């Protein structure tokens, strides 16, 4: 068992090294990447200028719009990688024809999947830190560090839950035989529900009630609610805002933990099962790669 784990870990490391070499091979790419984060944060700052003197109510999420949206960006970058990218990465293995070769190795089904995800990880995760940094240094974002451990717990939970959904999305490549750019799980969640109801730029309390209820079914809602209450200066830990918080007899943060943990415990094992099931189905149907 330990031997197997060491082997999988060593392989993950070599996948990471390979993806880093590829990513850093294109110097222009690194500059564009840096500027992209800077410009995105600048746009938030411009929006914050608009809202500075308005009567818009961000309660219970404090009083700093730049911090509010920068945190939205952080969750967005994590979601973009963990939820949006697995399908594209599996498609890359398929079209590149390497799935057969990975299977002809002692690795588990999941290691090549995690390994090729590393390109997105090195591309997107540092954006979280850069956004926080640019927001703080250039645009007046302020962060409350008193609840940092709890904030990191929410970050970990959103990371795992979106990865689970991402694996469900990736499994559709083999399980449902979607071989093109868009597949229904990612489209429905990322392009419809998350885009509408996650509340990256606004609190979901401003949305019509049906959309607020729709937002209750995605982990982003609870992660953002908790992170903003905990990190935006002036955040309120007691006032209930989300539909589930009104229905359950817990404090808002507790409700967020319960909801996010429950979602993670459902979607992560389901994602693993569906992905492995998809590979096994492809092994029966002969659709693992284009090599025929």
């Amino acid at each position, binding site marked *: 068992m330990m031997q197997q784990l060491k082997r999988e870990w060593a*392989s993950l490391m*070599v996948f990471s090294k390979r993806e880093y070499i590829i990513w850093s091979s294109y110097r222009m790419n690194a500059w564009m990447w840096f500027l992209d984060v800077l410009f995105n944060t600048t746009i938030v700052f411009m929006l914050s200028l608009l809202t500075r003197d308005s009567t818009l109510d961000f309660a219970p999420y404090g009083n700093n719009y730049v911090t509010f949206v920068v945190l939205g960006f952080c969750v967005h970058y994590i979601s973009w990688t963990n939820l949006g990218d697995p399908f594209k990465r599996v498609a890359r293995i398929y079209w590149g024809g390497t799935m*057969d*070769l990975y299977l002809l*190795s002692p*690795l588990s089904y999941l290691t090549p999947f995690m390994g090729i995800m590393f390109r997105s990880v090195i591309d997107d995760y540092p954006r979280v830190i850069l956004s926080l940094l640019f927001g703080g240094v250039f645009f007046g974002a302020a962060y409350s560090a008193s609840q940092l451990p709890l904030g990191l717990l929410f970050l970990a939970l959103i990371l795992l839950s979106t990865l689970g959904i991402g694996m469900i999305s990736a499994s559709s490549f083999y399980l449902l035989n979607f071989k093109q750019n868009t597949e229904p799980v990612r489209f429905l969640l990322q392009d419809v529900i998350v885009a509408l109801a996650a509340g990256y730029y606004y609190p979901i309390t401003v949305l019509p009630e049906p959309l607020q209820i729709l937002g209750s079914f995605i982990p982003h809602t609870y992660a953002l609610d908790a992170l903003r209450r905990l990190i935006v200066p002036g955040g309120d830990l007691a006032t209930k805002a989300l539909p589930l918080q009104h229905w359950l007899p817990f404090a808002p943060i507790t409700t967020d933990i319960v909801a996010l943990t429950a979602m993670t415990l459902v979607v992560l094992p389901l994602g693993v099962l569906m992905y492995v099931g998809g590979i096994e189905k492809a092994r*029966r149907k*002969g659709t693992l790669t284009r*090599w025929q």
Partner: protein
Amino acid sequence: MAVEPVIALRQIVKTFQVRDSVFRSHPFNAVDNVDLEVHTGEVMGLLGRNGAGKTTLIKMMAGLLRPDGGTGRVLGYDVYRDHKKIRASVSLVAPTADIGTDNNLTVRQNLEFWAVVYDLDRQLRDQRIDELLTFLDLKSYEDHWPISISAGMRQRLAIARSLLVHNPILFLDEPTVKLDAAGAHAVREFIRKINREFGITIILTTHFIFEAERLCDRVAIMDEGRIISCDSVANLRRHLQRYDSSVIQCGEVPESLRREVRRHLGALPQVMSCSFQGDRAEAAQLEISADPLESVLFDALKILRAHGIDIHAVDTNEPSLEDIFLNTVNSKGAS
């Protein structure tokens, strides 16, 4: 050569659903009741037209595709239950060298990557990579990007990848298909070398009949998912022709001597017929048909020499593997 079967398939079947329209599909037997045994250290060729079922059969033997029926063992592992163990114990070179080759990594970095993926012992990695780079004449290209080297070199790189671990079975699916003559020749030499030096059992699919003839101990001819003939090239040749014939170019043979020689040759039990051709006494041709030819030829030459006849050349009209392949496929294995 040892006789241990490393691959033993019985009545293996694989059926795919071919879609006719959105609502209708029909079953297609890609592999249909195939029996096959491959022995340790053997080079087995799979010949067949496009769509004959060669790649599907290879995928099932490699554990990449689940059969729909029949039984099979590869390296002693069951093809249904132990597919993971089979996959971890075999190597594969797919038809295009670009599969498994990352153009953003150098030749050496590519091999280093796969060495870890294949769990090659850390102490062995550099040594094995150096050995393979030297063995395949890739050493001077180790710091090149694969995209900057020729297709032949990339194919060698693919073979090097598959040999990082010395798995007992190597599947080569059309290994020379995109190579020029020199590259193909080098890869063929290499296949012979790894079979000889490492004792690796090789299953080779190819459309080049002469390639199979040069490399394979046995060939299996596939058509419409079935193996319609499987034997050594010599035996397949024997099955195709009832008997073989040979033409011996001689010097001067007077008519009286011709009769004498015919009488001696006709007395050999394997000889079906023999006759002298050519009117010119100073340049005769002796045509002999026999079953089998090789058992007679030596005696025939001895008889000619004993009668003081000069021998200038010996030609046999053995059918090539291409003749055998076409004949077998056209007659669906009936010959």
